[in-house]
């Protein structure tokens, strides 16, 4: 499989990268780890005339944890997320999810920024970042702006990022003290989720005091389900509350049938994932 020809650019700063993106226009694609884009280029489903490689951009990879606040550069790989001790302390949910993405080789190359910016509904990080209520920094010719993860995704490959913007940083608050779980059903290592659930919750006096629920690969975008969280809050996480949360979540998702199964199956698996995630999060709260 031979991809189409392109000119290769390796800018050294994010400003230079943004200028290239702006001047080369829609013939250009930004590449991070390349593990979504390159397979598409090999199939000639993508054929950019210019490839702008972000690997040389200074300061775009790295994890900073300070006062419970987490900032992650867009070029930080899944492998780096897994290996970072401070991140594992502040937001262990991220490590738990990153370990369930793809396989070791892909995790050495695949980046959090690529996973988030691509807008593939199968990607795990978008739902995870909605669960964490993260904010994304987008750098464009006019400067930088922030967009919340919960407002970033419009549909498959359709996001709030403009063509001439580059996702540079992800920021969220750590969840120390909260119960957490990322439950993902997949057919095999390396596959996208049939269904996945990200859950954070806090318990007080045997009752759920706060909750956040997001689902992956169950619509054309990640699904942050406020209704599912509302069904959990105030309850002792008993069977009635879990049933209500699953029903609320199922009201928010809209899975399509594909090789991972028919719609009814996916809705069923989504419920199983949410129940497991809540149970495991509660056991850690």
């Amino acid at each position, binding site marked *: 499989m031979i991809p189409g020809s392109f000119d290769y650019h390796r800018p050294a700063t994010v400003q230079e990268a943004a200028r290239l993106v702006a001047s080369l226009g829609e013939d250009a694609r930004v590449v991070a780890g390349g593990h979504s884009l390159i397979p598409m280029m090999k199939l000639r489903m993508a054929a950019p005339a210019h490839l702008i490689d972000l690997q040389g951009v200074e300061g775009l990879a790295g994890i900073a944890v300070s006062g419970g606040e987490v900032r992650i550069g867009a070029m930080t790989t899944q492998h780096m997320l897994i290996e970072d001790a401070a991140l594992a302390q502040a937001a262990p949910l991220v490590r738990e999810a990153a370990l369930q993405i793809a396989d070791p080789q892909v995790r050495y190359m695949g980046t959090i920024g690529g996973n988030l910016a691509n807008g593939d509904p199968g990607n795990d990080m978008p739902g995870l970042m909605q669960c964490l209520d993260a904010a994304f920094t987008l750098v464009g010719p006019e400067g930088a702006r922030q967009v919340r993860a919960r407002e970033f995704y419009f549909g498959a490959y359709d996001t709030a990022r403009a063509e001439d913007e580059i996702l540079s940083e992800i920021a969220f608050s750590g969840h120390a003290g909260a119960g957490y779980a990322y439950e993902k059903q997949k057919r095999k*290592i390396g596959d996208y989720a049939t269904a996945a659930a990200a859950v954070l919750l806090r318990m007080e006096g045997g009752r759920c005091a706060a909750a956040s629920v997001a689902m992956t690969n169950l619509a054309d975008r990640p699904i942050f389900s406020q209704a599912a969280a509302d069904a959990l809050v105030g309850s002792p996480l008993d069977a009635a509350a879990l049933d209500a949360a699953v029903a609320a979540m199922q009201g928010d998702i809209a899975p399509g049938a594909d090789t991972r199964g028919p719609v009814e199956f996916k809705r069923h698996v989504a419920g199983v994932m949410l129940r497991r995630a809540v149970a495991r999060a509660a056991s850690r709260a």
Partner: protein
Amino acid sequence: MSKMHVKLTVNGKAVEALAEPRTLLIHFLREELGITGPHIGCESSHCGACTVDMGGRSVKACTMFVAQANGAEITTVEGLAAADGTLHPLQEAFREHHGLQCGYCTPGMITRAYRLLQENPSPTEAEVRFGLAGNLCRCTGYQNIVKAVLAAAPVMQAQKEAAE
């Protein structure tokens, strides 16, 4: 769409060539440099037969443009044995424990296991299986591959300690 000048270090040797940016690293290694240890299996980032070590990372050379690898240090299975031909402990362990049958996945398996054991010098069986999850083998059922990697770990560690 002109060719670009690429400079790499492959198995300790400096390499320079003119290449189209779109050339996949696996094609560059095999066709331009004649390094045919890394194999082309699925060509779709799944099977791991093309795995090489690049700057301390196991990567699938079928999912990497030579342009991206420009400036990198790459080790393939050819670079693991000693200069006098003495097999690397992983190669020796694969032979000893029958960790291969047809051999197609073996270069990728060994190159991946090499990086895994640098990062985790004494893994559990579960950690070996998880660490090799990006490499497919259709012959062995993995049992003897896992055995070989577990057997190579203490040998590699002893060699490292002896060298220090």
